[in-house]
């Protein structure tokens, strides 16, 4: 009983210190910003106020929606293509070398801005170019994760499945895919993080809409307040997406 109480107190103290550090960071931000012009570092109060204004403005919401749906479509497409490549390499041994020694290394070391520049040269500014870049950046992460999942599949379980049915589609649907779910989920989680953090570069070069475009516009106009508020808006949207979509998905499949 006593130990329980002690751990509760220490958890409480940990939490208190954690929140205190956040407050301290905000206070020092406020203190530093006081001596600096607003285009260098605006204070936390102005930025929070702008953040609230942004979430009330239809223009920002529309752009945030544009970025979010591009991210979702890109993750789905990257998962399909990356997963498809992993399945090809797994199912056809002679293709394993093509996927593992050619396609994977090239996609994996391709610089993200390279895709963005190529898309800007090849396509008109718009959704397609942005999604192309994001998918190209995300494919290797999905490919590596799904391939790892396929490698770790329990062979005895597959043999058992094959002794029940000869339909390959049935084995795939009932056995292989469910066994791959944890790897698929971790691929989605990684791709989600990369999409918001790195793949947003796609919107800087080839998009007339989206949060990346808004950030670039604010930065060129030296509007640091809007710029910082947009950065924090991305943090909020990122965390919201993680809590509302990814964590529930993980929980749902954990129980199975």
């Amino acid at each position: 009983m006593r130990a329980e109480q002690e751990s509760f107190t220490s958890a409480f103290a940990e939490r208190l210190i954690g929140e205190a550090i956040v407050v301290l960071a905000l206070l020092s931000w406020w203190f530093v910003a006081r001596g600096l012009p607003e285009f260098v570092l605006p204070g936390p109060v102005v930025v929070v106020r702008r953040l609230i204004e942004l979430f009330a403005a239809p223009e920002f919401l529309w752009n945030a929606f544009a970025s979010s749906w591009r991210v979702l479509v890109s993750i789905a497409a990257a998962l399909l293509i990356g997963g498809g490549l992993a399945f090809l390499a797994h199912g056809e041994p002679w293709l394993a070398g093509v996927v593992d020694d050619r396609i994977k290394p090239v996609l994996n070391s391709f610089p993200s801005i390279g895709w963005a520049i190529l898309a800007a040269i090849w396509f008109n500014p718009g959704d397609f170019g942005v999604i192309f870049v994001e998918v190209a950046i995300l494919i290797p992460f999905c490919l590596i994760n799904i391939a790892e999942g396929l490698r770790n599949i329990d062979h005895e379980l597959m043999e058992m499945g094959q002794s029940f049915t000869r339909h390959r589609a049935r084995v795939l649907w009932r056995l292989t895919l469910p066994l791959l779910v944890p790897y698929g989920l971790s691929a989605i989680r990684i791709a989600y993080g990369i999409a918001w953090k790195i793949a947003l570069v796609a919107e800087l070069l080839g998009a007339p809409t989206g949060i990346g475009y808004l950030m670039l516009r604010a930065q060129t106009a030296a509007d640091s307040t809007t710029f910082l508020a947009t950065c924090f808006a991305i943090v909020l949207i990122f965390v919201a997406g993680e809590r509302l979509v990814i964590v529930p998905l993980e929980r749902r499949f954990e129980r199975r």
Partner: protein
Amino acid sequence: MVDTTIALGQSSRRRGLLARRLAPHLFTLLFLAAWQAAALVAPSYLLPGPAQVAWRLWLFVTSWRDLGHLGASLYHVAASIAISFVIGSLLALIPYYAPLLRFAIERRVGPFLNSFSAIGWTLLSIMWFGVTSLTVIFAISAVLVPFALINMSAGLANIDRETIEMGGSFTRRRARMFALVIVPSLYPFIFSTLRIMFGVSWKVTLTAELFGGNAGLGYMVNMERQEFDTATIFAAIVLIITFVHGTDHYLLAPLQAKVSRHYAG
């Protein structure tokens, strides 16, 4: 694991092996042929042919100016990896030595750093430091810190309690314990952290240089982009892919395997 190849005949297995070994090279040839065919149709500012890119690549490796840009990029990557590795490891060590700060690091600092966009750091550092090397290094380091933090925290969480206890029975000096027990048991994690950071850093370095650098491959690519010199852009991309994959595959992977073998047992 059941070895199904036993059932196959010797000759068909050899044929399979041959196909496996030949397929990647055939694929490369097919890819180059398709590229060449597409380049014949498309104008060269959209898609330069493989020969043109190879020629530009040759000019690149024989020009001191171009190699200077590669050197600048290497310097940016190395400096950022060093800085972010130190910061990330220190952040990971804080909750290990001061458990009261665990919540602050793991639930507040870590997630914040992890969800802040790379573009945000880049454009922010341009506003603060102007268009300099410092901007590029700051932006890459800011992106890399969470990777170091997460990996090194995992390493610290995996340290064998019994080894620590044994170390504790030999010395009470924390510095000695840190240098002789904790750091060596972290070696495999240090390696995997550096390897991940190397991969990610090249993904963001060009972006940072393109927007906020005055030297480096990203800066060069941006200049050529404005002149529609697509062959140089392709050459830079090919160079980076070769360099990153080569370093990872022929240097870091064998080193990591060696270190893991040595310390895992």
